[in-house]
């Protein structure tokens, strides 16, 4: 088997390089309480109407920062309650094209896909709440709360999906909303096992912030332990034990952006119903085979027939 990381046998057992912070759950429950106390505000603006098929909407909502945030929203042209997939963007923060997202309308499902506009994206300084990934998770949790009060959505059929950072975000939303999220599908998740990523020298690209932090702010690594402990609040594998949804996870064994071990640390910490799709000759890339599996998964466990 080709390998850039541990052997597959080791990967199947690997649960991560650091334990969760002791007050991990307490921290995120307090975040959830703040979100629950928020006054929800959102509005829809019709962008395109494809009569008798589907409608594109601009979806605008007030974020935790009080600013207006945006998402793409497509729903089948029906008054009936429909299932909904909340699809989170990868590291670039940009949702996929309307055409790409329209695949959900083809199976009678609505899709809500937020865009992010964050500055200082890679910063690691500041309190945990100030870190960009913390903000992304928090906004995602807020968005799920909005979805959970939308009255033309089948509340028994809400699903989350993402690739890369979006996959981690989907998992976080699933973990914090076990009674609402029915399925969670992830392709090559990131934001997991930061220490392992750094140890494998994969702290480039989306993880460049780690490299820059040590090189420019802490070249002697005086804060290394504290930094990785802090990142434990954002580590997707620490959310995994709380997920109750059906989970599908895709992993390419040649992934040099998010090393396979870090991804397995998520999968091996899941205690819910779970399915993995391993691609020995694929890296950090979308592939037809994963998309086929995701569609089968959604139609089998998610979208009512």
């Amino acid at each position, binding site marked *: 088997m080709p390998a850039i990381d541990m052997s597959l046998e080791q990967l199947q057992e690997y649960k991560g390089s650091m334990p969760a912070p002791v007050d991990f759950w307490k921290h995120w429950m307090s975040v959830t309480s703040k979100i629950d106390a928020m006054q929800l505000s959102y509005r829809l603006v019709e962008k395109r109407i494809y009569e008798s098929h589907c409608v594109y909407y601009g979806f605008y909502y007030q974020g935790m920062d009080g600013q207006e945030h945006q998402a793409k929203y497509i729903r089948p042209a029906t008054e009936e309650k429909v299932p909904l997939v909340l699809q989170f963007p990868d590291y670039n923060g940009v949702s996929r094209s309307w*055409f790409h997202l329209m695949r959900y309308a083809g*199976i009678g499902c609505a899709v809500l896909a937020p865009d992010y506009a964050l500055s200082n994206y890679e910063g690691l300084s500041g309190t945990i709440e100030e870190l960009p990934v913390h903000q992304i998770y928090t906004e995602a949790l807020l968005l799920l709360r909005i979805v959970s009060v939308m009255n033309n959505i089948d509340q028994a059929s809400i699903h989350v999906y993402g690739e890369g950072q979006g996959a981690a975000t989907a998992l976080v939303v699933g973990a914090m909303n076990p009674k609402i999220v029915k399925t969670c599908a992830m392709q090559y998740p990131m934001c997991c096992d930061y220490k392992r990523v750094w140890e494998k020298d994969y702290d480039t690209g989306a993880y460049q912030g780690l490299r820059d932090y040590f090189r420019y702010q802490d070249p002697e690594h005086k804060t290394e332990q504290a930094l990785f402990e802090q990142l434990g609040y954002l580590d997707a594998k620490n959310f995994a034990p709380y997920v109750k949804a059906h989970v599908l996870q895709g992993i390419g064994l040649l992934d040099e952006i998010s090393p396979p071990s870090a991804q397995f640390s998520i999968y091996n910490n899941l205690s819910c119903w779970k399915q993995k799709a391993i691609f020995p000759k694929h890296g950090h890339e979308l592939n037809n085979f994963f998309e086929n599996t995701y569609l089968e998964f959604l139609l089998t466990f998610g*979208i009512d027939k």
Partner: protein
Amino acid sequence: MPSVDMALEQLEHYNGTNPRPKDFWSFWDIQVKKTEQMTLSYEIQKSKIPESKYLTYYDLWFTGIGGSRIHAKYLKPKIQSDAPVMLQFHGYPGASRGWFEQTSWAGLGYALLAMDCPGQGGYSEDKIARQGTTASDHIIMGLDGPVEQMYYVQTFLDTCLMVRIAKELEGIDHTRICINGASQGAGLGLVCAALNHKDIVRCAALYPFLSDYKRAWDMDRDLVVYDGLRYYTRWFDPQGLRTQEIFTKLGYIDVQNFVERIECPVLFGTGLMDVFCPPSTQFAVYHHITAPKKHLIFPDYAHEEIGAFDEAVVDYMQCKEDAACLQ
């Protein structure tokens, strides 16, 4: 403006380099007629993807040119009895894209047929024996034998069979057969629209491959998708003594020579940073289209997914008025 080819002002006047065989249409008219006389043989089976309330996923198998067994994905909406149909062609040398990606058109009520090209990354077989090298690339497969043995002659004709099948399928609006494709898929789509000009009502083509071979070779861009040209000329004509002959023969499978027969409005897209299918080879195709047409140019994009083009394709396909669909 960044550039990997001529300046945009020159591209806008570039008409192609590759020679065109004198008997181009008489050759193709015979091939198309023979294909029309073939007995259609196909079967439709439910695929492994579970059907939803709205859509059924099928595998469609048909007997293609030379007896090859050709595979296509077939998606059919349940809620509509007169669905328009999208013929979707894929890039080189892969396969029809995944089932979920193909589902987007169903979101607009389209049925969809996505053929796997013979012998590439999908399930279609290629049973034709040919003269000449088989070590590299499909452009040059059959180049040493009769023209009708060339790989793309076969594949272009397979697209004609796909159209004939589309016209027989139940529950399909046979007056709304549309085409969409990128790269090789755009090349196949444009040829299909030309050879079936009475049946095709829309054709969207993003950065077409299979055009102006001589230009790609002259630019030394006979790499990646056009690399067969490099292998062939280095191995079989190292001194360039047969250049004219080789490229004239390739003229039979050059997309720019077909498109004058297209009758439907064409939506065309080019990324100016495309190093796989050089922009000039694409502009040559565009200029030979005589039907109503529109060229969307993306200066910062290369040979990659262009979301803005996809959005434009949706509106172009959805507009039923020929006169308005390119506005």
